[in-house]
């Protein structure tokens, strides 16, 4: 599982440029003998046949990650860019990126400290004031390597460190992709659907069409979620903590999870000795909202990984939580046999 998460976290998948992730998943799924269908938006929808289920169950995870899109190239060969998805500008200054499929190395630059006056230093710069430096010395040179509309992704390799922690980019939501893949490859023998969705980070755009096609009765979204167990956060703002198990939210800004399903998942965790924690804050949205309301209605729930510094090049999660997330999803599926 860890190796799978790490591998997935090295693939580029900035929203609407999910190709690398999709190709990797498709190859694994087809090797398993399952059919994988790519819809018009790029969602990868997998049906894994198995013992007849009580209802149509769908698991969902998004393939995309936050990143950047190149908007312009200056005469001197610098790339102007806009963020794709929710990126805190404060975390990107000086970070390494790679641009496009060619993976051209670059760094997010800003006027050096020596050239900035005291007042300007107090203000968080806007992406407009920054640029990506790919070492090109003219517009023409830069154009040989990239063009407007290209994406840029964080350049950050996975690192295991400390007490069973993993640092990587895009843990949100490659942990979900890894969980779904493992369910397909070695999960319980129960008929179910798996949606690897696109464009979650720009407004949960892929999940609705996926749900409309599959028409699940129940959908479980596997997601990365914000952990707030950091020194500055007040007790009631800690949200959830890496290492404390699978995170069960009761709602987010996109959906209120039906209390019965939320309780059912808690019960399954308790019965099987799976570590879990209830998310103690409400923020952000997930694919669950779009899935819930794409047709006449789907029961939805989420099982999340607690991730510090989410949407940054260095997301931090606990490796043993991955196992709890997988086991909870697998036990739920096991219980769906008719």
């Amino acid at each position, binding site marked *: 599982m860890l190796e799978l998460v790490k591998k997935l976290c090295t693939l580029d998948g900035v929203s609407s440029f999910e190709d690398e992730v999709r190709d990797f998943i498709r190859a694994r799924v087809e090797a398993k003998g399952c059919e994988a269908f790519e819809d018009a938006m790029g969602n990868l929808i997998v049906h894994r046949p198995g013992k007849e289920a009580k209802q149509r169950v769908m698991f969902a995870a998004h393939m995309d990650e936050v990143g950047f899109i190149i908007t312009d190239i200056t005469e001197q060969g610098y790339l102007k860019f806009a963020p794709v998805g929710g990126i805190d500008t404060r975390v990107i200054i000086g970070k390494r990126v790679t641009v496009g499929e060619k993976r051209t190395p670059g760094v997010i630059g800003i006027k050096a400290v020596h050239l900035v006056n005291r007042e300007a230093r107090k203000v968080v710069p806007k992406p407009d004031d920054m640029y990506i430096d790919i070492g090109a010395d003219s517009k023409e040179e830069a154009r040989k390597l990239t063009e407007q509309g290209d994406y840029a992704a964080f350049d950050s390799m996975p690192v295991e460190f400390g007490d069973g922690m993993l640092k990587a980019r895009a843990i949100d939501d490659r942990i979900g992709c890894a969980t779904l893949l493992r369910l397909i490859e070695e999960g319980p023998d129960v008929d179910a659907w798996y949606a690897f969705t696109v464009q979650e980070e720009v407004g949960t755009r892929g999940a609705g069409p996926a749900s409309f096609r599959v028409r699940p009765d129940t959908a479980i979204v596997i997601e990365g979620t914000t952990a707030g167990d950091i020194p500055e956060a007040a007790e009631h703002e800690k949200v959830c903590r890496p290492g404390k198990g699978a995170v069960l939210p*009761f709602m987010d800004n996109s959906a209120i999870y039906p209390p019965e399903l939320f309780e059912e998942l808690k019960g399954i965790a308790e019965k099987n000795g799976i570590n879990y924690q209830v998310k103690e*804050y409400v923020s952000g949205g997930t694919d669950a909202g779009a899935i819930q*309301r794409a047709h006449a209605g789907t029961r939805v729930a989420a099982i999340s990984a607690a991730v510090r510094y989410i949407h940054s090049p260095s997301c931090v999660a606990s490796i043993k939580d991955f196992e709890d997330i997988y086991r909870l999803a697998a036990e739920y599926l096991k219980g769906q046999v008719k």
Partner: protein
Amino acid sequence: MTKFDTIETMKKVNSVVAPAGHETPVAEIFMELARPFCDEVYRDVMGSVIAHKKGPGKKLMFSAHMDSIGFIVTHIDEKGFIRCHNLGGIRAANVVGTPVKFANGTRGVFLCPSDKTLTDLTRVSEGYIDIGAHSREEALERVQVADVAVYATETYQSGDMIFSPYLDDRIAGIILLKALEELKDEKVENDVYFVFSVQEEVGTRGAMTAAFAIEPYAGVALDVTRTGDELGGKPRMECYVNGGAAIKVVDSSLVCSPALVAAMKDCAKENKIKWQIEVLEAGGTDAGSIQRSRSGAYAGCISIPTRYIHSPQESCSLSDVEDCAHLAAAFAKKALTF
């Protein structure tokens, strides 16, 4: 003599705790009250109650949302104080000092921390609920994370007005019940679905999926609207309590179908029902969701002019309630000709 006395029925539906996403207790009450007056009554996947009165003509869907705004517990601290998130639009500073109740009967009050002022209280999560517990352990015996609470304020008549929490939108549910009763021994020319929808307060979510399943030709939401006659004179709005049923032309969720608005005005005139026009500059209703479900539907709204919306004591006119019920019944009965 109507079976549905406004004050008594409001007390009954407000006796339970049923905010957005947690409507089951109030759904059971509405189902029981509607059942004698319709051909079938059922709940859909999201939990909306659908009371179907069959007729030979086009499908007409009424929608009155049965959820209320409320609080959901996110965290319980060492001293036994409870932190919450809002379900729907609550201005924290406006509800300081409001008594609240939980489903298991636990009582408490919403408060502002002593190191904050009302102007600091920009979010419900910055306030807290005191349930009279002295430790986390004691609080946990009565309240868990993910439990919900609502205003525990009174319902009463003063002059010709009703004062109550959650007139938004249970007064509209009562109006639908009155309309159903009025149509008891009548044949309706339209095929009418009386929907008591869920999750309106978090984004008109229940009406969306209900409309997808019903596929109405026309949809009419029943909801409260603001008035132009509160002290202070804002908003500038020519819609008044005791002015009769308000026929909506526009709000921020939809521009009502002109053909439906015209038909509704004619219906009011023919039946000598007191009516007025409503142009609302802010706020949305289920009608917006219904209008744009599937390939689209004619949509409009019958509004009840209401003061102090979303406060713990909303107020509307008892005679407007009757006008709205008569208008809904008359509109249901006569074949749609647009």
